[in-house]
């Protein structure tokens, strides 16, 4: 290999080489970090909420008429909806996973203001909650109908029973989730809640919260001036029932305003809209960047071929084969690209450190670096292939024309 003459030729014309190397380094820095961010977000989006999202929707209404009686209206609505053909179950709740708005409290295994506590999301449900959400009860039991209490907006009293997620159980009882069953935990510092059941998985409403897997179900109907009803249908019946139930409820009682009827699929899309948006932006950036960098390498390589026409002609006249010329340019580009990707690896790690600081992103996994280097090497070689091919076509006669 003629590495030595290539290096000495390069050292005489640093600019072009430096431009390519810098471009490659920057491109690698941006691409690798973007891919990492995309993967990270995708990982968050792929987390399961633990509930049935395919056949479910949420309907919320607000009572406003003088004769609106919250308690009787709610029970009437629930009975009406549960009886409808196609409905699997329905429950009144304050919120649902992915909705972004909800209630949170701290739980502790001891009483008092200084006890170590664990934050958790709270869903108010009745004995139909487990079935309507479609969550799996893996230990203990569901609530019974006589455990459900009525909760006013400003009440500070909590019911005595709770069902918690496995993740919350593990966080409360030192990773031994099974031991949580039957234990008492304290809410609002002093009020006891007996853990009667444990469910496998159900996310808190906030997808960006670090405690998103921690959830507590408590047996309550809420009197918050309206209701939010979570409905699960037979597969394929959801869309029909979404419109039908809305119309029926309006027909049944006009003193309320149906505010929103959203399927859980819509809720998920809305919830991760900015994740999705960011990923699309980053993907677009990656594509544009790859194209621009590749074209840039083509341009610069053509430049260096043009400048060295005479030299190439001379070499050809002196007996170099076309293959030698091709190899010369490929090796030269390989050297430049190598310099670029090594610089790029350092810059990639540097940018990742900044991002870790700014976005609470984890540190980049090591294998992203060699993968990025390989991709850039490949792009570099592909881009230089065209101009190098052109260089082989230069005829030896060119060398004889002047000088």
């Amino acid at each position: 290999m003629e590495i030595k003459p290539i290096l000495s030729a390069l050292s005489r014309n640093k600019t072009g080489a430096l431009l390519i190397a810098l471009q490659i380094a920057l491109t690698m820095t941006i691409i690798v970090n973007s891919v990492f961010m995309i993967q990270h977000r995708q990982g968050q989006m792929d987390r399961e909420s633990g509930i049935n999202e395919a056949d479910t929707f949420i309907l919320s209404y607000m009572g406003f008429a003088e004769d609106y009686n919250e308690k009787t209206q709610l029970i009437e609505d629930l009975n009406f909806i549960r009886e409808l053909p196609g409905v699997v179950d329905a429950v009144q709740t304050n919120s649902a996973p992915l909705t972004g708005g909800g209630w949170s409290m701290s739980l502790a295994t001891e009483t008092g203001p200084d006890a170590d506590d664990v934050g958790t999301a709270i869903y108010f449900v009745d004995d139909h909650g487990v079935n309507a959400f479609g969550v799996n009860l893996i230990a203990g039991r569901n609530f019974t109908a006589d455990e459900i209490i009525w909760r006013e907006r400003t009440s500070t009293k909590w019911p005595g029973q709770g069902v918690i997620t496995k993740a919350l159980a593990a966080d409360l009882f030192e990773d031994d989730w099974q031991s949580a069953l039957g234990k008492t935990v304290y809410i609002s510092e002093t009020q006891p809640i007996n853990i009667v059941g444990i469910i496998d998985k159900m996310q808190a409403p906030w997808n960006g919260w670090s405690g998103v897997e921690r959830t507590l179900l408590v047996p309550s109907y809420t009197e918050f001036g309206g209701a939010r009803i979570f409905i699960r249908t037979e597969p394929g019946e959801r869309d029909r029932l979404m419109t039908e139930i809305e119309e029926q409820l309006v027909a049944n009682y006009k003193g309320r305003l149906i505010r929103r009827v959203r399927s859980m699929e819509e809720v998920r899309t809305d919830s991760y809209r900015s994740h999705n948006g960011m990923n699309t932006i980053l993907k677009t950036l990656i594509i544009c960047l790859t194209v621009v960098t590749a074209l840039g390498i083509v341009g610069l390589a053509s430049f260096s071929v043009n400048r060295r026409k005479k030299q190439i002609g001379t070499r050809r006249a002196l007996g170099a084969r076309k293959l030698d010329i091709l190899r010369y340019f490929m090796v030269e580009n390989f050297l430049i690209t190598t310099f670029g990707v090594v610089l790029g690896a350092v810059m990639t790690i540097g940018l990742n450190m900044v991002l870790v600081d700014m976005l609470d992103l984890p540190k980049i996994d090591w294998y992203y670096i060699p993968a990025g280097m390989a991709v850039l090497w490949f792009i570099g070689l592909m881009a230089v292939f065209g101009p190098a091919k052109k260089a082989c076509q230069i005829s030896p006669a060119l060398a004889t024309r002047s000088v």
Partner: protein
Amino acid sequence: MFGYYLRLAMLSIKRNPILSALMVAAIAVGIGASMTTITVNYAMGSNPIPHKSEQLFAVQLDTWDPNQPFREPDTPPDQVTYLDATALMKMAPAAKQTAMTKTFQVIEPQGEDVIPFDALGRAAFGDFFSMFDTPFLYGNGWDRDSDDSLAMVTVLSKETNEKVFGGENSVGKFIRIGGKDYRVVGVLDDWNPIPKFYDVTNGPFNDSEDFYIPFNLVASLELPRSGNTNCWKPSNEDGYQGFLNSECVWIQFWAELPTESEQEEYLNFLNSYATQQKELGRFPRPLNNRINNVMQWMDQQGVVQDGAKVVMWLSIMFLLVCLLNTIGLLLTKFTTKSGEIGLRRALGASKSTLFVQHLIEAGIIGLMGGLLGLFLAMGGLQGIAMLFGNDVKDLVSLDTTMVATAIGLAIVSALLAGLYPTWRACSIQPAVQLKTQ
């Protein structure tokens, strides 16, 4: 001469259409991407009330949990408790100040077939309107007597006035909100500050409210609230009164303090008030009360999201790659012209004339790239509006500042990128160049 150089530049650009197109495209893509993200960041970080932003102050009182700050590093809560809001309204030394919160109610327009609709309201004091310079279409805000006497008055947004009263002057008429009749005293003109600086807690890019009512009605009518509420300590008593007396924070508090001495006096008052409250067993944390003017507040509350900042810097790096590219392409281009340059030098053209001529060529490429980039940025902003929906709809328009920035950035970039290749091209030795022909 300039005209002649322009013609030469155009000719030269036409001579290598592919190379020229590549350069224009590289600059356009770079400008398009970076201007899209710069525009979003610029809108997020813009000053929503420039003429008064240094006089309006968000008030923070540290009433939080002794064991942990509201937010690291030692930041006091972004809202205040009802106890403190009412105390400050009575005693704090500001010419104008207001406590406020969000409420959520059903408006029932009169008439048979009009459907009721749900509306977001802001409960505030009468000084709200003059503090934040809200434009009025009809009437005015309410006075302090109305605050004190719990008058059932309201100011409507232009949109609500259109929905309920068909856009006519509704001052003096009554409107049914949450089952109660309010007398309309004013109707606002379009008013939608971006960011919504007076309540970033409940969403810095939300729309302004549909109606405004006196703050004191919230407690007396026990109105439903819809804003963010944070508590660190369980309340001692049940019911609405228990909630009002609790350590929960749910009220935004702003004061207008035009001079430095007033600001100092106000902060001193907050500290002495907090010290007093400590004797009653409240304010368990070390003294940490703050007043922040509008831009300080935006900064503390992180209104410009870090994710948006990162994407902006990435796209600026992308522009840098595009410029490196343009440098490379211009080098290529000017080298192919070395024969012509050598000839002109030999015929007596000075280095500086040639330099100016080629810089003009680079500038034209920059201008074209900038214009094309501007269109790309418009497309990019449309794309962002589609991707992110309602949250960003006010952040995705190019104003004249941004258009000028884009074109300026493009030309400066192209000239910077053009400098080195031009210098290289002009330092050709005419003798050597001509000899090799």
